């Protein structure tokens, strides 16, 4: 039974529960709904919720736990190896298991046929059903068979237990329905629990981020000394170990590019916001504001391609080469400039909100003294809006530091500590991508360093975000 049909079955059961609960409530009240504590629909809702929610929750937990249980059981069948090879073998086991499943379907093999398959000559047959296997020994095949058996068995029990839970919920609900049963209150408590659970998802996300980063970072520091990571000035990962993994060249590239980006975006974005908030007419504002929102929504990959195809070559041909500063089209300048363009709408729409939050009475006060518009802006509005604008700039900085696609396509891959903005440099985010999508095995320091880089990135942006949010919140309270 496939997952979709299982979910559908539970939902149909819940719908039936709704109808049954409502009918039972009415009949228990002798056909007079006024004698019920709650509306008939509430009894229906109660039955439906009790039918669907525990069953679906069980299904979700089962789906998450099942792969872990299977891996653990299967791993005990395999010869013990170190962590990295066993994870590779496990990947093979999973693939073969999928392949066996497909073979069973396409070639119509019975479970006994599958059990009788020998490792010889199996690889081409698996390839025919779209599963490429690198190596296959008897142990792997046995493990794969066990994997598949477990999957089948657990899958079967999952269907049974989910449907049983669902039916039990329905029965329990119907048994409790009596005219004096407070169905509305119970339903509402139930809904409340769901609401609270939903609000915890955001917390769970943060916990998940921090846990996964911390856990793998600790693994990394077991393989690679922390002081080298934080203090070394070289970044030179080697495929065969013995790498230098100092964070400084990456942090330098990140900061340099972000600095250039803010240098471009802050003045232009701020002046744009001032013009739109203070000078532009109502009609111009009414189309400019949504336009800016749309522009702020352009995906960064678009800017990345712009950097790669247009800005990079242009800067190289018109500036870097004539000035003798370098011959690379990907450079700090390319990435910084394009990132600056990306940040303009971000900074300007945040600043626009903040400038509009400055009370009109301050403007009146300044005009009343005979100040010109620009004097009012420069000497009254901007100082009043300063905290909010600082918050916006910090949020912009946090975005620039965490930006990935523009630097992947525009900044280059060479980790360098240099001042020349026309040289290719690299950033923390670029290295996270390249180390995690590369070919090195997962348990090596060269891959795990990505988590330490991620943790650093998360920590930096967290500090910037929290300060910015705090400032902006205080600022809004001031004028509310």
């Amino acid at each position, binding site marked *: 039974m*496939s*997952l*979709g049909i299982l979910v559908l079955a539970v939902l149909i059961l819940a719908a039936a529960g709704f109808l049954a609960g409502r009918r039972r409530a009415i009949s228990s009240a002798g056909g007079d709904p006024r004698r019920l504590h709650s509306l008939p629909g509430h009894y229906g809702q109660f039955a439906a919720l009790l039918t669907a929610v525990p069953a679906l929750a069980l299904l979700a937990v089962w789906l998450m736990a099942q*792969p*872990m249980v*299977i891996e653990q059981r299967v791993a005990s069948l395999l010869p013990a190896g170190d962590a990295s090879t066993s994870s590779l073998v496990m990947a093979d086991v999973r693939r073969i298991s999928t392949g066996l499943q497909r073979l069973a379907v396409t070639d119509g093999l019975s479970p006994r046929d599958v059990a009788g398959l020998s490792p010889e000559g199996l690889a081409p047959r698996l390839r025919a059903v779209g599963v490429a296997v690198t190596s296959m020994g008897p142990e792997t095949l046995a493990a794969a068979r066990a994997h598949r058996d477990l999957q089948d068995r657990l899958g079967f029990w999952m269907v049974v237990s989910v449907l049983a839970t669902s039916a039990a919920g329905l029965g329990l609900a119907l048994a409790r329905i009596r005219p004096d049963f407070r169905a509305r209150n119970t339903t*509402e408590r139930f*809904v*409340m629990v*769901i609401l609270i659970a*939903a*609000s915890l*998802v*955001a917390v769970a996300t*943060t916990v998940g*981020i921090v846990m996964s980063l911390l856990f793998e970072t600790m693994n990394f520091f077991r393989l690679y000394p922390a002081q080298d990571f934080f203090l070394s000035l070289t970044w030179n990962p080697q495929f065969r170990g013995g790498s230098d993994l100092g964070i400084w060249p990456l942090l330098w590239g990140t900061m340099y590019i972000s600095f250039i980006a803010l240098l471009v975006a802050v*003045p232009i*974005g*701020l*002046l*744009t916001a001032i*013009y*739109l908030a203070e000078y*532009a007419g109502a009609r111009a504002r009414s189309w400019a504001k*949504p336009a800016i929102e*749309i*522009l702020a929504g*352009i*995906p*960064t*990959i*678009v800017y*990345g*391609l*712009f950097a*790669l195809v*247009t800005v990079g070559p242009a800067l190289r041909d018109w500036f870097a080469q004539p000035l003798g500063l370098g011959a690379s089209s990907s450079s700090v300048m390319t990435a910084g400039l394009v990132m600056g363009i990306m940040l303009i709408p971000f900074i300007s729409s945040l600043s626009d909100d903040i400038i509009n939050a400055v009370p009109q009475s301050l403007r009146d006060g300044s005009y009343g003294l005979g100040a*010109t*518009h*620009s*004097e009012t802006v420069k000497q009254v509005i901007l100082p009043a809006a300063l905290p909010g604008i600082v918050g916006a700039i910090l949020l912009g900085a946090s*975005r620039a530091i*965490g930006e*990935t*696609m523009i630097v992947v*396509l525009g900044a280059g891959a060479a980790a360098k500590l240099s001042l020349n903005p026309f040289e290719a440099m690299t950033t923390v*985010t670029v290295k*996270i*991508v390249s180390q995690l*999508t590369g070919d090195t095995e997962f348990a090596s320091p060269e891959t795990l360093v*990505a*988590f330490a880089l*991620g943790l650093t*990135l*998360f920590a930096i942006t*967290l500090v910037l*975000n*929290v300060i*910015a*949010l705090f400032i902006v919140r205080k600022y809004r309270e001031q004028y509310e």
Partner: protein
Amino acid sequence: MTDATAPEAAPPEPGSLFAPDARTRRRNAAERRFRAYGLGAVILSILALVLLLTSVIGNGAGAFRQTFIAIPVTLDAAIVDPRGNRDIEEMKKVTTIGYGRQLEASMVAAVAAAGLQSEGISDKDIAGLLSKEAAAGLRNRVLADPELVGQTVEVRALANGRVDGFFKGRVTMESAALDSNITPEQLVLAQRLREAGLITIAFNPQFLFGPDASELRPEAAGLGVAILGSAYMMFIVLVLALPIGVAASIYLEEFAPKNRWTDLIEVNISNLAAVPSIVFGILGLAIFINFMGLPQSAPIVGGLVLTLMTLPTIIIATRASLKAVPPSIRDAALGVGASKMQAIFHHVLPLAMPGILTGTIIGLAQALGETAPLLLIGMVAFVREFPAAPPEGFFDPASALPVQVFNFTQRADPAFVERASGAIIVLLVFLVAMNTVAIILRRRFERRW
């Protein structure tokens, strides 16, 4: 602004209202300058964005039109069906190489028939005008309809990427002379074939609906798998993020007590909205793939990661629109004896719905364009097969539109720049459509209390 040495600093004389003094003139000049800076900034930012869009659209518009070669091909039964029994299983054993030979012969014949046979160009070079994908296309066509064997069919195949590039101005005679994949003679022939009407340039549906193609066949690369993968992920995000986001917002806005704990949740949500997207990718890799064992490159993982990324956006938008519903509505409902839950679900939520939907669409649009986290969960993989229908298809490998753009940029052939830009045009069309719907929703249903 203090000008301590100004000689005309004395208070203006009565009657000077009609004649601005020097200082006022200077101040007004400063005013005009400042205004010009502001206008300049607006123009500069518009210019940058116009440049961005023209660059992308200029590079990408060509991807939707492709060079096709139309030739009659006689399907020799001796080659495509050696046993002559029209048995599909037997015919499957004939590889694309066999069909390639058929195409080569037909190409040479077609060129000769058009009277364009020129010296110094081999049969192989003539066939080289066709895409390497053409043989596979012909094979699929024959396997789908074995009756074609022995007949002469009209084949309209993609031209080689270099030939296409030549007609689009990307490949020149000079570059062809240095290129091992094409010769100037071939281009001359292609030009003549175009004049003879055998080569046409037309809309290429394969770009929108076909799967990706390998590095050597840029002309055949399409976005079908990526669009489908993105659609799957958007579906997952919508189904998960909207109910969870709305439920969380209702709790936080309407029920949660105001204390340290809810304050922390609030800061946490605002922070999540600003956490770099790549960090969510690390989360997806560590939790969903390594810990929970979900498959790599699968839309389900991408969808879950993007759901977590979109949640803060939806929660912030939903809370804002719940807050905008005036308390008098709640009071009115409570006043007639509704429970708080009823007041919210019957009255407040429907009134807040336009704002919630707007926020959701904007969140979806963000998720649609997100690239970095998807790179980390393995969606960069080269995927040619379309994922199955949901829900099983959610676990099949797929690509996503923005990741496909990135994939194209990582390939050497410059023809892929056109493909990448074309893919961005498709992406932007979706985004603009979504944002427009959001703006219209807001304009139409926006209520001022």
